[in-house]
């Protein structure tokens, strides 16, 4: 197979000095080899002939990426190992400020990168967990699925002992390797999903730089933790077409709105949209009329058919900011909701023709949920399919309840996708 048809990334183990090991990888879905250090001479020529080779990849911290000039691929080097929080583990999971179990998740970083560097590949890596050598393949499969579900690639880093055992032909290591190859192959067959855009009616606009970087990025992080999906955009990328169908825009930056961005957002609000921003950002906006003062943290203004919510203070608490934006916009615009979610995060995307809704479900506990999980959507659903690596695609039952269409999610350990077909725009 040509490297281009094998999109998987493999971080070449430092202990692998025998070029014969390239043969092991050649029959796998991993067509790109990453060499954290200089490429060993014995391997260089055959590797370059048979693989896409990346030497000393320039991993960056996501906060340091200059998004308007981001490279392709975007290399995010400060991902986290996806899991329950450090104190996590079953019911003892550490609670975060959300009151929910703390989750180490990368989905928001990947989605941010994909939105801010449209068209570019996104690669993300993190250090392996401390007990990686003792971990089973499902731990790595989960990390792999998390990246793929959000449209990125995570290089497979083999734990030291697994790499050595695999090189020695150990059966357990070979089984471990085949499991990961199987997961990557499964995703390769679903490559089209990676281009499906987020189904959300919220846009988050910021330059994601300087003093705006932290509140903007943390907003994305904590909104995702609420299972509130969003799309992110740089100010210069905001235009009418992009905002079509949006219900709300959160403009995070301190810089006053002006020029084309102001015009675009005025048009958006005039047509009925909601803009949430700092009070100082709206200095140049004319014609705002007070619309009640019932909110403790925002001054609500009316403009045309829409509203502008002006934060009375700076973004001091990103958790509160995510909650406020969600509620100001209203949960009415949530595309899907989960019941008994536990440690499951979901992210909805839609097909380019907007007729199919795909919900990625990632279980950060990596154990089948203790309670029955139910997915609900307002939109009428004609048919639904369940997809999981290692299982055949099959139809899901749809129930009609007071709140809309519901699909029971059978317990799953790591990743599951629900693809729904409806009659109308999947994002509404």
């Amino acid at each position, binding site marked *: 197979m040509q490297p281009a048809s094998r999109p998987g990334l493999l971080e070449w183990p430092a202990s692998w000095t025998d070029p014969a090991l390239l043969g092991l990888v050649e029959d796998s879905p991993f067509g790109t080899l990453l060499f954290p250090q200089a490429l060993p001479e014995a391997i260089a020529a055959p590797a370059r002939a048979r693989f896409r080779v990346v030497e000393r990849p320039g991993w960056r911290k996501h906060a340091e990426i200059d998004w308007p000039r981001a490279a392709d691929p975007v290399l995010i080097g400060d991902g986290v190992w996806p899991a329950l929080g450090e104190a996590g583990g079953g019911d003892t999971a550490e609670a975060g400020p959300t009151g929910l179990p703390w989750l180490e998740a990368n989905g928001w970083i990947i989605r941010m990168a994909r939105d801010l560097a449209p068209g570019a590949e996104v690669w993300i890596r993190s250090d392996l967990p401390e007990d990686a050598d003792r971990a089973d393949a499902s731990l790595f499969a989960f990390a792999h699925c998390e990246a793929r579900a959000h449209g990125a690639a995570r290089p497979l880093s083999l734990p030291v002992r697994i790499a050595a055992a695999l090189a020695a032909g150990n059966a357990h290591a070979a089984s471990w390797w085949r499991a990961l190859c199987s997961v990557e192959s499964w995703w390769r067959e679903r490559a089209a999903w990676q281009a499906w855009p987020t189904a959300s009616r919220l846009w988050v606009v910021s330059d994601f730089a300087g003093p705006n970087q932290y509140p903007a990025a943390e907003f994305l992080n904590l909104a995702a933790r609420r299972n509130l999906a969003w799309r992110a955009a740089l100010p210069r990328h905001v235009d009418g077409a992009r905002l079509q169908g949006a219900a709300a825009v959160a403009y995070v930056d301190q810089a006053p709105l002006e020029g084309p961005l102001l015009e675009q957002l005025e048009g958006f609000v005039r047509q009925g949209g909601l803009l949430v921003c700092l009070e100082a950002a709206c200095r140049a906006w004319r014609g705002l009329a007070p619309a009640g003062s019932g909110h403790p943290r925002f001054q609500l203004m009316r403009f045309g058919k829409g509203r502008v919510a002006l934060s009375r203070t700076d973004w001091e608490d990103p958790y509160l900011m995510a909650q406020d934006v969600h509620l100001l916009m209203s949960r009415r615009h949530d595309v899907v909701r989960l019941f*008994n979610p536990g440690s499951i995060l979901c992210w909805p995307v839609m097909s380019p023709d907007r007729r199919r809704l795909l919900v990625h479900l990632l279980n950060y506990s990596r154990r089948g949920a203790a309670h029955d999980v139910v997915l609900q959507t307002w939109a009428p659903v004609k048919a639904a399919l369940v997809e999981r690596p290692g299982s055949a695609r099959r139809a899901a039952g749809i129930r009609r309840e007071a709140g809309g269409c519901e699909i029971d999610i059978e317990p799953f350990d790591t990743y599951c996708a629900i693809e729904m077909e409806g009659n109308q725009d999947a994002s509404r």
Partner: protein
Amino acid sequence: MLPGKGNVTRRSFLASAAAIPAAAGRVLAEAPASRVAIARCDTYGQELHGALARLLDQLGGAARLVRGKTVTVKINLTGSPTMRMGRTPAEKAQYTHPAVIGSLVRLFGDAGARRVQIAEGCFSSDEPLEEFLLAAGWDPAPLAAAAPQVVFENTNTAGRARGYARFTTPRGGHLFPGFDLNRAYADCDVVVSIAKLKEHATCGVTLGMKNMFGATPLTIYGDYAGKDEPDETNARSGRVMVMHYGRRPPSGSAPQPREDGTPRDDKWRMPRIVADLAAALPVHLTVIDGIDTMAGGEGPWIPGCRPVHPGLLIAGLNPVCTDAVATACMGFDPMAARGAPPFERCDSFLELAEQLGAGTRDLRRIEVAGLPVEKAVFRFRA
């Protein structure tokens, strides 16, 4: 005029209640009795509206209760909106069903209610009630459209009125001599409790009276309530510290419980708080949704709970009488004292409320309209 209250209006009653001196004793001559109506209703579909209308007619008619009045409707949304008992939607287990709420609001609107306020102290939250409903997967729009003027109020904070009203417990109460509540319960003429027919871990059963426990604002009675004054920024907790266990007092601005030597045991405290609330906050109509519900506890967090289908609606004008009949419909004896089902581990709030003169629990004194109790019994401990 409110049924059973002579010519006393709600507002004048509240004003005068504060002037009632605490009685030395706890035992009253005879607590009032009032009619309770029971109906069989198998689904939340078309038959529901007619069944509720008949219940109200059997109690004297909705118009007599609400015409020209502002009505506050306290619903029951206990626990997180995303938590379910298995795959059973909350409205078919722990929450009052939106169809019951909507149907009653429509009946009130049709009967001439001037304004309907749907109220609840949403679980650990100060978010708008409509948003809480959406989180549960409900659409609040049909509820808002069910009567000419419907508003929603999360009563965990001061809310729209930006202030609280004091409700004084007659005769000083068992534990709380009074409560400070969101003004939705004072700036109205009629209070309605729409509850669910359920058992309860600390009160034996939870019906119309226990439903009103959720009226206590978290800003005053929550775990992180303000020390001296209500903290309007911190209504995101439970009521465990102040109410269940008395480990800290409510905000200093509110009437303080008499904690001298009282047990810090929720099975002693909670029934008394429920009784005190029933005496302090007059509820003029109680409607209990027992169509689809749960047995074994009040929410999916109780181990061993299960969905059940009693297929019942119960309504009454006196909350103690209504809860007593509902308790009997669940297969329990409303006269039971601590140690007997359903009060094996707790005191009986029915008995405690009766002692405060809020109403009788003696079925011999309660007239039952519609389905007789013996035909309505659905044994929750079957």
